[in-house]
Each structure stands twice: as C-alpha cells, then as structure tokens.
C-alpha cells in the first residue's frame, strides 16, 4: 500500500505506524515483532526489535534491506531508520553441553 499517497493527511508517526503494521505479520511468522521507539528531531526513526527478532542473525538484514528501504521509500520525510535494541542476545548457546558436545 502506498501510504503517503493514500493517506496524505496522516502525521509522520501515523504513516510510520501504518507502514510497520504491514510487515508485522511477516515478523510474527518468525515469532518476532517491532515497535517504534521515537522519531528524532532530524527525522531518524528509532525502532526496537522484540520477541525472537532479538538476537536473530537476520534481524539486521531485515532492518537494512527491508524495513529501512520500505519506510524511506514510502515516507519521504524519513532520513534514516535505526534499531536501538540493547538487550543481550537471547539465542546464546545453551549453558549445558549437548550430548554431541561432550568432548
């Protein structure tokens, strides 16, 4: 959906939320999601990955080559899109060695 064309009267935040809503189901399929943290005064959108996106090796790729491109093309006002996650990686190797790791 061409948000900026179909909904020209929306605020910047509303346009971002509408666009993000389009990709939430795709992230949801992988057990993850994303939320908008804030829009900085110089129009950089700060996002936070949630759920299984946290620590996922593909999250950065999703941001760089998916979300960033999509948001910036659909919404002219946006200058950049970054993730501000500071949680530790959740997909760390289990503390107990698996059977084949006994050596």
């Amino acid at each position: 959906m061409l948000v900026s064309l179909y909904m020209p009267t929306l605020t910047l935040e509303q346009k971002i939320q509408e666009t993000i809503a389009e990709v939430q189901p795709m992230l949801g399929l992988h057990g993850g999601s994303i939320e908008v943290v804030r829009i900085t005064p110089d129009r950089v959108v700060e996002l936070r990955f949630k759920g299984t996106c946290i620590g996922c090796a593909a999250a950065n790729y999703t941001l760089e080559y998916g979300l960033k491109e999509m948001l910036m093309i659909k919404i002219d006002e946006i200058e950049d899109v970054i993730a501000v996650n500071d949680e530790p990686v959740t997909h760390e190797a289990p503390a107990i060695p698996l059977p084949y790791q006994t050596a």
Partner: protein
Amino acid sequence: MLVVTNLHAKSQEADILKGVSFSLKAGTVTALMGPNGSGKSTLANLLAGHPAYVATSGTVSLDKKDLLEMKPEERAQAGLFLAFQYPASLPGVSVSHFIRQALNAQEKSRGEEITGVAPFIRLLRTHMKTLDIPTSFAERSLNDGFSGGEKKRMEMLQMLVLQPKCIILDEIDSGLDIDAIKVVAAAVNSLRTKERAILVITHYQRLLEHIKPDNILVLQDGQITRTGGPELATDLEREGYGRTS
C-alpha cells in the same frame, strides 16, 4: 576520451558498421544522426558490449584502454553508460535494488566506500524529484508495466545516480512527449561537465534544441558520411539524409 578507429562490425553475419572512426572528447556533447538501419544502435550496443554485435576489425579505446577487450561490466566500471532505446523490464527486481546494486558494484570496483541504504535512498529521492518521478516507483519492479516515457526516465535515473564519465544515449527521445523531453534533456544537461563526454543518438533535431551538441556526426550505411557543428542538424532537418556529400 572515447576513440573509435576504423570500426567494422557485424550482427548475424550482416556487415553493419563499415569503417567508422570518430572520437568523443571530454567536455563535449556529440550528436550521432542517421536514417533507420544506418547502424546507430549497433554502434551503441557494440560499445556497451552486447554479445549479438561483433567487431570484426578496428579499435575502440576508452581513456586509452582497449574497450573491446573488456566485459560489459568492466566497461561500466570504467565509466561507460548506455541508455537503451528499448529498456528491458526486470519483473521482481525493484528500481531501488537494481540501481543500488549497480552503484555498489561500481564503488567496489573502484575501491570506494559502499553507499549504504539510507544515503542511497536519500540520493535516489533527490534525483527522482529532478526527473519528476514519484518516489513510490522505487519499490516497483524495474520497467515492469512502465510507459515508454517512464522507462526513459528510469534510464536517466540510473545515469544520474551512477554519474558515468562517458554517456551514450540511444534515442532517448523516442516515445517521449514534449514535457518529458525537457525533463530528460535537463537531466543530461546537468551532467555536462568538462570531465564528461556525451554521445546523443537521435533522429530528430527536436532533442538537439534542448541538448545543444558541440559536434554532429551523420552515419549512413555503416559509415560516417558528414560531420559538422550544430548547424548541420538544421540542414538535415531541411534536406533529409539524401545528400551525402
């Protein structure tokens, strides 16, 4: 910058270019005119490295490097750019992805820092505004379902992003309305610098009213038959290509 010497070429066993010689100097715009079937597009495609066209003799050098020895991508990396007469559609490849990959590949070959997604989109938006293309086109598949005018604007968009130093425009005016010609001509004129050489292939003087050439070459039956200044276009418009002296 680009020097073509006694170039002979064929396509599917037919001899099309029969000893073409000319040079494009940095800082100049050269127009190549000629009737249908004279070999203009063959010359353009051959210079870009289209496999259907084979040079049988002669030489072409770009900045003193043998162009004919290079692969098409090496020619592009060396700064050659061809705007196609009939741009191909690439369903499934977005405008944004296509142009970013091309830009990043050229940057990589030159050992330059790769332009990231955000600066690239900002750059793309600026050039799309210049060409009067809605930003939403960036996520559409390249040329898929585009009108003739939109395809030509996409060629110009690639040219503006890549900033090539030797530009060949193969009938960039075909299929364009008057307003679109002005937009395309403005894009070309914005790249007229002293480091850059531009070859404009066209049938009509109309385009040359907007992109004023420094020199004009006339190609007829695979040979350059006339050369001259901008006034030659007016003569051709009046007299046609019949006079070959």
